[in-house]
Protein backbone atom coordinates (compact mmCIF):
# COMPACT_ATOMS: atom_id res chain seq x y z
CA UNK A 1 0.00 0.00 0.00
CA UNK A 2 1.13 3.50 -0.68
CA UNK A 3 2.44 5.23 2.44
CA UNK A 4 1.89 8.98 2.26
CA UNK A 5 4.92 9.77 4.43
CA UNK A 6 7.32 7.67 2.40
CA UNK A 7 5.80 8.99 -0.81
CA UNK A 8 6.13 12.57 0.37
CA UNK A 9 9.84 12.05 0.97
CA UNK A 10 10.50 10.38 -2.38
CA UNK A 11 8.53 13.05 -4.25
CA UNK A 12 10.79 15.55 -2.55
CA UNK A 13 13.90 13.48 -3.21
CA UNK A 14 13.04 13.31 -6.89
CA UNK A 15 12.85 17.08 -7.03
CA UNK A 16 16.16 17.29 -5.16
CA UNK A 17 17.97 14.95 -7.52
CA UNK A 18 16.67 16.73 -10.61
CA UNK A 19 17.86 19.94 -8.97
CA UNK A 20 21.33 18.39 -8.71
CA UNK A 21 21.62 18.34 -12.49
CA UNK A 22 19.46 21.36 -13.31
CA UNK A 23 20.96 23.71 -12.42
CA UNK A 24 23.43 22.27 -9.83
CA UNK A 25 25.82 20.28 -11.94
CA UNK A 26 25.37 22.66 -14.86
CA UNK A 27 26.61 25.56 -12.74
CA UNK A 28 29.36 23.51 -11.11
CA UNK A 29 30.76 22.59 -14.51
CA UNK A 30 29.80 25.87 -16.19
CA UNK A 31 31.85 27.93 -13.77
CA UNK A 32 34.94 25.82 -14.43
CA UNK A 33 35.14 26.46 -18.15
CA UNK A 34 36.03 29.59 -20.10
CA UNK A 35 33.37 32.24 -20.51
CA UNK A 36 33.07 31.49 -24.20
CA UNK A 37 31.92 27.95 -23.47
CA UNK A 38 29.61 28.35 -20.53
CA UNK A 39 26.41 28.10 -22.50
CA UNK A 40 27.54 24.95 -24.23
CA UNK A 41 28.01 23.26 -20.86
CA UNK A 42 24.58 24.35 -19.71
CA UNK A 43 23.17 23.17 -23.01
CA UNK A 44 24.81 19.77 -22.65
CA UNK A 45 23.30 19.29 -19.22
CA UNK A 46 19.87 20.47 -20.30
CA UNK A 47 19.71 18.47 -23.49
CA UNK A 48 20.99 15.34 -21.76
CA UNK A 49 18.34 15.74 -19.06
CA UNK A 50 15.59 15.96 -21.66
CA UNK A 51 16.84 13.17 -23.87
CA UNK A 52 17.54 10.73 -21.05
CA UNK A 53 14.05 11.34 -19.68
CA UNK A 54 12.46 10.21 -22.90
CA UNK A 55 14.80 7.28 -23.37
CA UNK A 56 14.10 6.19 -19.81
CA UNK A 57 10.44 6.00 -20.76
CA UNK A 58 11.29 4.37 -24.07
CA UNK A 59 12.84 1.25 -22.64
CA UNK A 60 15.61 2.50 -20.37
CA UNK A 61 13.65 1.92 -17.20
CA UNK A 62 12.43 -1.41 -18.44
CA UNK A 63 15.91 -2.64 -19.30
CA UNK A 64 17.03 -1.69 -15.81
CA UNK A 65 14.12 -2.66 -13.63
CA UNK A 66 12.06 -5.36 -15.32
CA UNK A 67 12.81 -8.95 -14.56
CA UNK A 68 14.54 -10.17 -17.73
CA UNK A 69 17.81 -12.04 -17.19
CA UNK A 70 20.64 -11.49 -14.70
CA UNK A 71 22.36 -9.43 -17.39
CA UNK A 72 19.64 -7.11 -18.57
CA UNK A 73 15.92 -6.51 -18.16
CA UNK A 74 13.39 -6.94 -20.92
CA UNK A 75 11.01 -4.49 -22.59
CA UNK A 76 7.90 -5.41 -20.63
CA UNK A 77 7.76 -1.97 -19.05
CA UNK A 78 8.48 -0.06 -22.25
CA UNK A 79 6.46 3.16 -22.07
CA UNK A 80 5.47 2.09 -18.55
CA UNK A 81 3.06 -0.46 -19.93
CA UNK A 82 1.19 -2.20 -17.16
CA UNK A 83 2.09 0.42 -14.58
CA UNK A 84 -1.10 1.96 -13.29
CA UNK A 85 -1.58 5.14 -11.34
CA UNK A 86 -1.97 3.17 -8.12
CA UNK A 87 0.63 0.45 -8.74
CA UNK A 88 2.94 0.23 -5.74
CA UNK A 89 6.59 -0.49 -6.35
CA UNK A 90 7.09 -3.85 -4.74
CA UNK A 91 8.79 -3.89 -1.38
CA UNK A 92 8.14 -0.18 -0.81
CA UNK A 93 5.33 2.16 0.14
CA UNK A 94 5.62 4.36 -2.94
CA UNK A 95 3.84 4.27 -6.30
CA UNK A 96 5.82 2.79 -9.16
CA UNK A 97 5.30 5.97 -11.19
CA UNK A 98 7.31 7.72 -8.51
CA UNK A 99 10.00 5.04 -8.37
CA UNK A 100 10.32 5.45 -12.13
CA UNK A 101 10.75 9.19 -11.69
CA UNK A 102 13.21 8.93 -8.83
CA UNK A 103 15.37 6.50 -10.78
CA UNK A 104 15.06 8.66 -13.88
CA UNK A 105 16.78 11.51 -12.13
CA UNK A 106 19.73 9.14 -11.60
CA UNK A 107 19.67 8.21 -15.25
CA UNK A 108 19.85 11.92 -16.03
CA UNK A 109 22.72 12.89 -13.80
CA UNK A 110 24.97 9.96 -14.63
CA UNK A 111 25.59 10.77 -18.30
CA UNK A 112 25.58 14.46 -17.34
CA UNK A 113 28.56 13.82 -15.07
CA UNK A 114 30.54 12.74 -18.11
CA UNK A 115 30.14 16.26 -19.55
CA UNK A 116 33.11 17.21 -17.40
CA UNK A 117 35.39 15.12 -19.59
CA UNK A 118 34.55 16.69 -22.91
CA UNK A 119 33.79 20.35 -22.27
CA UNK A 120 35.06 23.10 -24.56
CA UNK A 121 35.79 20.89 -27.59
CA UNK A 122 33.06 18.37 -28.42
CA UNK A 123 30.44 18.54 -31.16
CA UNK A 124 26.95 18.97 -29.83
CA UNK A 125 25.52 16.18 -31.99
CA UNK A 126 28.11 13.84 -30.55
CA UNK A 127 26.96 14.67 -27.03
CA UNK A 128 23.44 13.58 -27.80
CA UNK A 129 24.29 10.49 -29.76
CA UNK A 130 26.87 9.33 -27.24
CA UNK A 131 24.68 9.94 -24.20
CA UNK A 132 21.69 8.20 -25.72
CA UNK A 133 23.58 5.06 -26.66
CA UNK A 134 25.43 5.08 -23.38
CA UNK A 135 22.17 5.06 -21.43
CA UNK A 136 21.01 1.90 -23.16
CA UNK A 137 24.34 0.12 -23.34
CA UNK A 138 26.07 1.07 -20.11
CA UNK A 139 23.72 2.66 -17.64
CA UNK A 140 20.58 0.57 -17.93
CA UNK A 141 22.32 -2.82 -17.87
CA UNK A 142 24.64 -1.90 -15.01
CA UNK A 143 21.65 -0.64 -13.04
CA UNK A 144 20.02 -3.98 -13.68
CA UNK A 145 23.11 -5.84 -12.49
CA UNK A 146 23.17 -3.99 -9.20
CA UNK A 147 19.63 -2.88 -8.36
CA UNK A 148 17.32 -4.53 -10.86
CA UNK A 149 17.71 -8.17 -9.87
CA UNK A 150 20.87 -8.79 -11.90
CA UNK A 151 23.99 -10.78 -11.15
CA UNK A 152 25.88 -8.28 -8.99
CA UNK A 153 22.90 -7.69 -6.74
CA UNK A 154 22.48 -11.45 -6.39
CA UNK A 155 26.12 -11.78 -5.40
CA UNK A 156 25.36 -9.39 -2.57
CA UNK A 157 27.26 -6.37 -3.76
CA UNK A 158 26.61 -3.31 -1.58
CA UNK A 159 25.83 -0.13 -3.47
CA UNK A 160 23.26 1.90 -1.62
CA UNK A 161 22.85 4.94 -3.86
CA UNK A 162 25.08 4.47 -6.84
CA UNK A 163 28.81 4.36 -6.11
CA UNK A 164 29.10 1.74 -8.81
CA UNK A 165 25.99 2.44 -10.84
CA UNK A 166 26.53 6.17 -11.09
CA UNK A 167 30.07 7.16 -10.20
CA UNK A 168 32.18 4.29 -11.47
CA UNK A 169 30.29 4.12 -14.77
CA UNK A 170 30.54 7.85 -15.33
CA UNK A 171 34.13 8.17 -14.13
CA UNK A 172 35.58 5.38 -16.22
CA UNK A 173 33.63 6.38 -19.32
CA UNK A 174 34.88 9.94 -18.83
CA UNK A 175 38.47 8.80 -18.97
CA UNK A 176 37.94 6.88 -22.19
CA UNK A 177 36.08 9.84 -23.64
CA UNK A 178 38.83 12.30 -22.70
CA UNK A 179 41.48 10.07 -24.19
CA UNK A 180 39.66 9.58 -27.47
CA UNK A 181 38.56 13.18 -27.84
CA UNK A 182 41.98 14.64 -27.17
CA UNK A 183 42.82 17.47 -24.82
CA UNK A 184 41.64 21.08 -24.78
CA UNK A 185 43.83 23.46 -26.79
CA UNK A 186 46.83 24.39 -24.73
CA UNK A 187 46.56 21.54 -22.25
CA UNK A 188 48.35 21.18 -19.92
CA UNK A 189 50.48 24.34 -20.02
CA UNK A 190 48.21 27.05 -21.26
CA UNK A 191 44.62 26.36 -20.36
CA UNK A 192 42.67 29.23 -18.86
CA UNK A 193 41.49 29.26 -15.27
CA UNK A 194 37.83 28.70 -14.34
CA UNK A 195 35.89 31.71 -15.54
CA UNK A 196 33.60 31.92 -12.50
CA UNK A 197 34.66 30.19 -9.28
CA UNK A 198 31.63 31.69 -7.55
CA UNK A 199 29.42 29.74 -9.92
CA UNK A 200 31.34 26.56 -9.18
CA UNK A 201 30.59 27.00 -5.50
CA UNK A 202 26.90 27.68 -6.11
CA UNK A 203 26.65 24.54 -8.20
CA UNK A 204 28.47 22.52 -5.59
CA UNK A 205 26.16 23.81 -2.87
CA UNK A 206 23.15 22.74 -4.89
CA UNK A 207 24.72 19.35 -5.47
CA UNK A 208 25.29 18.99 -1.74
CA UNK A 209 21.69 19.84 -0.85
CA UNK A 210 20.36 17.72 -3.69
CA UNK A 211 22.52 14.79 -2.62
CA UNK A 212 20.33 14.46 0.45
CA UNK A 213 17.63 13.33 -1.96
CA UNK A 214 20.08 11.10 -3.78
CA UNK A 215 21.32 9.20 -0.74
CA UNK A 216 18.61 9.58 1.88
CA UNK A 217 16.01 9.17 -0.88
CA UNK A 218 17.57 5.84 -1.81
CA UNK A 219 16.13 4.47 1.43
CA UNK A 220 12.80 4.74 -0.44
CA UNK A 221 11.15 5.51 2.89
CA UNK A 222 11.11 8.23 5.51
CA UNK A 223 12.54 6.77 8.69
CA UNK A 224 15.71 5.93 10.52
CA UNK A 225 17.50 4.71 7.41
CA UNK A 226 16.91 7.97 5.59
CA UNK A 227 17.91 9.98 8.65
CA UNK A 228 21.18 8.13 9.09
CA UNK A 229 21.92 8.20 5.35
CA UNK A 230 21.51 11.96 5.37
CA UNK A 231 23.76 12.22 8.39
CA UNK A 232 26.65 10.18 7.06
CA UNK A 233 26.36 11.85 3.67
CA UNK A 234 26.73 15.23 5.26
CA UNK A 235 29.59 14.25 7.54
CA UNK A 236 31.52 12.75 4.66
CA UNK A 237 31.03 15.85 2.53
CA UNK A 238 32.16 18.16 5.32
CA UNK A 239 35.17 16.02 6.15
CA UNK A 240 36.41 15.68 2.58
CA UNK A 241 35.99 19.42 2.04
CA UNK A 242 38.18 20.20 5.01
CA UNK A 243 40.75 17.62 3.94
CA UNK A 244 41.03 19.24 0.53
CA UNK A 245 41.26 22.68 2.12
CA UNK A 246 44.04 21.63 4.46
CA UNK A 247 46.06 19.97 1.71
CA UNK A 248 45.93 23.11 -0.43
CA UNK A 249 46.70 25.30 2.54
CA UNK A 250 49.78 23.29 3.43
CA UNK A 251 50.91 22.85 -0.16
CA UNK A 252 50.27 26.28 -1.65
CA UNK A 253 49.63 28.51 1.33
CA UNK A 254 46.22 29.39 -0.06
CA UNK A 255 43.14 27.22 0.30
CA UNK A 256 40.94 27.87 -2.71
CA UNK A 257 37.18 27.94 -3.09
CA UNK A 258 37.30 25.70 -6.13
CA UNK A 259 39.40 23.33 -4.05
CA UNK A 260 37.17 23.09 -1.01
CA UNK A 261 34.06 22.46 -3.07
CA UNK A 262 35.84 19.87 -5.16
CA UNK A 263 36.50 18.17 -1.85
CA UNK A 264 32.79 18.39 -1.09
CA UNK A 265 31.91 16.53 -4.26
CA UNK A 266 34.63 13.96 -3.62
CA UNK A 267 33.22 13.33 -0.15
CA UNK A 268 29.71 13.01 -1.51
CA UNK A 269 30.68 10.60 -4.27
CA UNK A 270 32.67 8.49 -1.83
CA UNK A 271 29.93 8.05 0.75
CA UNK A 272 27.25 7.34 -1.84
CA UNK A 273 27.56 3.54 -2.10
CA UNK A 274 27.92 3.21 1.67
CA UNK A 275 25.41 5.79 2.78
CA UNK A 276 22.70 3.34 3.80
CA UNK A 277 24.99 0.95 5.59
CA UNK A 278 27.39 2.88 7.78
CA UNK A 279 27.21 5.03 10.90
CA UNK A 280 28.75 8.38 11.84
CA UNK A 281 32.20 6.82 12.12
CA UNK A 282 31.87 5.47 8.61
CA UNK A 283 30.88 8.94 7.42
CA UNK A 284 34.02 10.41 8.93
CA UNK A 285 36.27 7.67 7.60
CA UNK A 286 34.90 7.75 4.09
CA UNK A 287 35.11 11.53 3.97
CA UNK A 288 38.72 11.36 5.04
CA UNK A 289 39.55 8.67 2.52
CA UNK A 290 37.60 10.36 -0.26
CA UNK A 291 39.32 13.69 0.27
CA UNK A 292 42.82 12.24 0.35
CA UNK A 293 42.49 9.73 -2.44
CA UNK A 294 40.58 11.93 -4.87
CA UNK A 295 43.05 14.77 -4.37
CA UNK A 296 45.85 12.45 -5.25
CA UNK A 297 43.88 11.02 -8.17
CA UNK A 298 43.36 14.48 -9.68
CA UNK A 299 47.08 14.99 -9.85
CA UNK A 300 47.66 11.48 -11.08
CA UNK A 301 45.28 11.68 -14.03
CA UNK A 302 46.18 15.16 -15.22
CA UNK A 303 49.91 15.17 -14.50
CA UNK A 304 51.04 11.56 -14.75
CA UNK A 305 48.61 10.15 -17.27
CA UNK A 306 48.47 13.49 -19.07
CA UNK A 307 44.85 12.85 -19.96
CA UNK A 308 42.66 15.93 -20.13
CA UNK A 309 39.67 14.63 -18.20
CA UNK A 310 38.97 18.32 -17.98
CA UNK A 311 36.81 18.62 -14.90
CA UNK A 312 38.19 15.50 -13.20
CA UNK A 313 35.27 13.16 -13.59
CA UNK A 314 37.34 10.04 -13.14
CA UNK A 315 39.44 11.40 -10.32
CA UNK A 316 36.56 12.79 -8.30
CA UNK A 317 33.59 10.63 -9.18
CA UNK A 318 35.09 7.40 -10.44
CA UNK A 319 37.79 7.13 -7.83
CA UNK A 320 35.52 8.44 -5.09
CA UNK A 321 32.76 6.01 -5.97
CA UNK A 322 35.17 3.08 -6.13
CA UNK A 323 36.82 4.00 -2.83
CA UNK A 324 33.45 4.22 -1.13
CA UNK A 325 32.31 0.94 -2.60
CA UNK A 326 35.32 -0.87 -1.23
CA UNK A 327 35.24 0.82 2.15
CA UNK A 328 31.54 0.06 2.48
CA UNK A 329 32.57 -3.51 3.11
CA UNK A 330 34.59 -2.36 6.10
CA UNK A 331 32.35 0.21 7.71
CA UNK A 332 29.19 -1.83 7.28
CA UNK A 333 30.34 -4.02 10.18
CA UNK A 334 28.36 -3.40 13.34
CA UNK A 335 31.34 -2.77 15.56
CA UNK A 336 32.13 0.28 13.43
CA UNK A 337 28.56 1.50 13.67
CA UNK A 338 27.25 -0.05 10.47
CA UNK A 339 24.17 -2.20 9.87
CA UNK A 340 26.28 -5.34 9.85
CA UNK A 341 27.34 -7.77 7.16
CA UNK A 342 24.85 -10.28 5.86
CA UNK A 343 24.71 -13.54 7.78
CA UNK A 344 27.62 -15.78 7.00
CA UNK A 345 29.47 -13.18 4.98
CA UNK A 346 32.92 -12.16 6.21
CA UNK A 347 34.50 -8.79 5.67
CA UNK A 348 36.92 -10.43 3.27
CA UNK A 349 34.11 -12.02 1.27
CA UNK A 350 32.32 -8.75 1.04
CA UNK A 351 35.45 -6.92 -0.01
CA UNK A 352 35.94 -9.38 -2.85
CA UNK A 353 32.34 -8.93 -3.94
CA UNK A 354 32.76 -5.19 -3.89
CA UNK A 355 35.96 -5.39 -5.90
CA UNK A 356 34.30 -7.62 -8.46
CA UNK A 357 31.48 -5.11 -8.72
CA UNK A 358 33.79 -2.20 -9.28
CA UNK A 359 36.06 -4.12 -11.64
CA UNK A 360 33.35 -5.61 -13.80
CA UNK A 361 31.49 -2.36 -14.15
CA UNK A 362 34.65 -0.38 -14.86
CA UNK A 363 35.61 -2.83 -17.55
CA UNK A 364 32.20 -2.84 -19.18
CA UNK A 365 32.02 0.96 -19.04
CA UNK A 366 35.41 1.31 -20.68
CA UNK A 367 34.81 -1.18 -23.45
CA UNK A 368 31.31 -0.01 -24.24
CA UNK A 369 32.28 3.65 -24.21
CA UNK A 370 35.14 2.92 -26.56
CA UNK A 371 32.85 1.17 -29.00
CA UNK A 372 30.13 3.78 -28.78
CA UNK A 373 32.62 6.54 -29.46
CA UNK A 374 34.03 4.73 -32.45
CA UNK A 375 30.51 4.66 -33.82
CA UNK A 376 29.90 8.29 -32.97
CA UNK A 377 33.10 9.26 -34.74
CA UNK A 378 31.80 7.60 -37.87
CA UNK A 379 28.27 8.92 -37.69
CA UNK A 380 28.80 12.56 -36.85
CA UNK A 381 32.37 13.11 -35.70
CA UNK A 382 33.45 13.80 -32.15
CA UNK A 383 35.63 16.88 -31.96
CA UNK A 384 34.66 20.37 -33.04
CA UNK A 385 36.91 22.13 -35.50
CA UNK A 386 39.82 24.16 -34.16
CA UNK A 387 38.21 27.32 -35.46
CA UNK A 388 35.03 26.64 -33.59
CA UNK A 389 36.97 25.80 -30.47
CA UNK A 390 38.93 29.02 -30.65
CA UNK A 391 35.84 31.12 -31.15
CA UNK A 392 34.05 29.19 -28.43
CA UNK A 393 31.26 26.64 -28.59
CA UNK A 394 28.66 29.06 -27.26
CA UNK A 395 28.62 30.99 -30.46
CA UNK A 396 29.71 28.40 -32.98
CA UNK A 397 27.41 25.61 -31.79
CA UNK A 398 24.56 27.54 -30.22
CA UNK A 399 24.66 31.00 -31.75
CA UNK A 400 24.71 32.81 -28.41
CA UNK A 401 27.05 34.61 -26.06
CA UNK A 402 27.03 33.93 -22.34
CA UNK A 403 27.51 37.48 -21.17
CA UNK A 404 26.31 40.69 -22.83
CA UNK A 405 27.09 43.15 -20.06
Amino acid at each position, binding site marked *: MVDAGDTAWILTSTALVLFMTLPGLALFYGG*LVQSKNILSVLMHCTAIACLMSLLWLFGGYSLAFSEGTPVVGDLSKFLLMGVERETVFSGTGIPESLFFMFQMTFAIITPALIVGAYVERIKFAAVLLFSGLWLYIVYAPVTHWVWGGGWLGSMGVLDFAGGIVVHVTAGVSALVMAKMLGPRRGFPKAVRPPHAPWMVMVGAAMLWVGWFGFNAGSALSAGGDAGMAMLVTHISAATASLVWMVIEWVKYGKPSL*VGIVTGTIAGLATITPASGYVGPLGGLALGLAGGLIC*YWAVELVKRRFGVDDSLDVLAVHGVGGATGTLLAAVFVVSSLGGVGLADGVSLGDQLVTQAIGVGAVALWSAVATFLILKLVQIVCGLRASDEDIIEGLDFTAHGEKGYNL
Partner: protein
Amino acid sequence: MKWIIAIIQPHQLDPVREALTAINVHGMTVTEVKGFGRQKGHTEIYRGAEYLINYLPKVKIEVAVESTMADSVVETIRSSSATGKIGDGKIFVIDLESAMRIRTGETQADAL
Protein backbone atom coordinates in the same frame (compact mmCIF):
# COMPACT_ATOMS: atom_id res chain seq x y z
CA MET B 1 48.01 70.94 -26.51
CA LYS B 2 49.24 67.60 -25.30
CA TRP B 3 47.60 64.20 -24.96
CA ILE B 4 48.94 62.53 -21.88
CA ILE B 5 48.57 58.81 -21.42
CA ALA B 6 49.38 57.24 -18.09
CA ILE B 7 49.29 53.53 -17.31
CA ILE B 8 49.08 53.09 -13.55
CA GLN B 9 48.19 50.60 -10.83
CA PRO B 10 44.40 50.38 -10.44
CA HIS B 11 44.40 51.31 -6.77
CA GLN B 12 46.39 54.48 -7.50
CA LEU B 13 43.55 55.92 -9.56
CA ASP B 14 41.92 57.76 -6.70
CA PRO B 15 45.11 59.46 -5.46
CA VAL B 16 46.00 60.51 -9.01
CA ARG B 17 42.57 61.90 -9.64
CA GLU B 18 42.69 63.87 -6.45
CA ALA B 19 46.13 65.22 -7.23
CA LEU B 20 45.04 66.31 -10.70
CA THR B 21 41.98 67.99 -9.33
CA ALA B 22 44.24 69.87 -6.95
CA ILE B 23 46.10 71.40 -9.90
CA ASN B 24 42.81 72.15 -11.61
CA VAL B 25 42.70 69.36 -14.14
CA HIS B 26 39.13 68.09 -13.92
CA GLY B 27 38.57 66.21 -17.12
CA MET B 28 40.02 62.82 -17.89
CA THR B 29 39.08 59.50 -19.40
CA VAL B 30 39.89 56.19 -17.79
CA THR B 31 40.08 52.70 -19.28
CA GLU B 32 40.68 49.32 -17.71
CA VAL B 33 43.53 47.64 -19.52
CA LYS B 34 45.80 44.64 -19.25
CA GLY B 35 49.47 45.40 -18.84
CA PHE B 36 52.45 43.36 -19.93
CA GLY B 37 55.86 44.50 -18.75
CA ARG B 38 58.64 43.72 -16.35
CA GLN B 39 56.26 43.06 -13.55
CA LYS B 40 55.28 39.47 -14.05
CA GLY B 41 51.82 37.97 -13.70
CA HIS B 42 50.90 35.30 -11.24
CA THR B 43 49.84 31.70 -11.18
CA GLU B 44 46.53 30.48 -9.97
CA ILE B 45 46.20 26.89 -8.86
CA TYR B 46 43.03 24.96 -9.43
CA ARG B 47 42.79 21.31 -8.56
CA GLY B 48 46.51 20.92 -8.68
CA ALA B 49 46.92 22.50 -12.12
CA GLU B 50 48.78 25.77 -12.48
CA TYR B 51 47.30 28.49 -14.61
CA LEU B 52 49.68 31.25 -15.63
CA ILE B 53 48.05 34.66 -15.77
CA ASN B 54 50.69 36.66 -17.58
CA TYR B 55 49.08 40.07 -17.62
CA LEU B 56 48.27 42.47 -14.86
CA PRO B 57 45.22 44.64 -14.46
CA LYS B 58 46.16 48.29 -15.00
CA VAL B 59 44.31 51.51 -15.49
CA LYS B 60 44.94 53.88 -18.38
CA ILE B 61 44.31 57.57 -17.84
CA GLU B 62 44.06 59.90 -20.81
CA VAL B 63 44.13 63.65 -20.28
CA ALA B 64 44.21 66.42 -22.81
CA VAL B 65 45.94 69.55 -21.48
CA GLU B 66 47.36 72.80 -22.67
CA SER B 67 51.01 72.47 -23.63
CA THR B 68 52.12 74.78 -20.86
CA MET B 69 50.61 72.51 -18.26
CA ALA B 70 51.96 69.27 -19.66
CA ASP B 71 55.06 69.08 -17.51
CA SER B 72 53.27 69.80 -14.30
CA VAL B 73 50.56 67.27 -15.13
CA VAL B 74 53.13 64.60 -15.87
CA GLU B 75 54.92 65.37 -12.64
CA THR B 76 51.68 65.34 -10.66
CA ILE B 77 50.70 61.98 -12.04
CA ARG B 78 54.13 60.60 -11.34
CA SER B 79 54.33 61.79 -7.80
CA SER B 80 50.84 60.72 -6.89
CA SER B 81 51.05 57.28 -8.43
CA ALA B 82 54.58 56.19 -7.58
CA THR B 83 54.88 53.51 -4.93
CA GLY B 84 58.41 52.61 -5.91
CA LYS B 85 57.51 49.07 -6.78
CA ILE B 86 57.96 47.44 -10.11
CA GLY B 87 54.82 47.78 -12.22
CA ASP B 88 54.05 51.34 -11.21
CA GLY B 89 53.60 52.15 -14.87
CA LYS B 90 54.47 54.79 -17.44
CA ILE B 91 53.48 58.19 -18.64
CA PHE B 92 53.49 59.04 -22.34
CA VAL B 93 53.00 62.40 -24.05
CA ILE B 94 51.76 62.93 -27.59
CA ASP B 95 51.16 66.14 -29.45
CA LEU B 96 47.48 67.01 -29.69
CA GLU B 97 46.40 69.03 -32.72
CA SER B 98 42.92 70.00 -31.82
CA ALA B 99 40.16 69.56 -29.30
CA MET B 100 36.46 70.32 -29.41
CA ARG B 101 33.68 70.27 -26.83
CA ILE B 102 30.74 68.51 -28.43
CA ARG B 103 28.07 70.32 -26.49
CA THR B 104 29.14 73.82 -27.43
CA GLY B 105 31.43 73.37 -30.40
CA GLU B 106 34.14 75.28 -28.52
CA THR B 107 37.59 74.34 -29.69
CA GLN B 108 41.18 74.10 -28.49
CA ALA B 109 41.97 75.10 -24.93
CA ASP B 110 38.41 76.25 -24.37
CA ALA B 111 37.26 72.73 -25.00
CA LEU B 112 39.26 71.13 -22.20
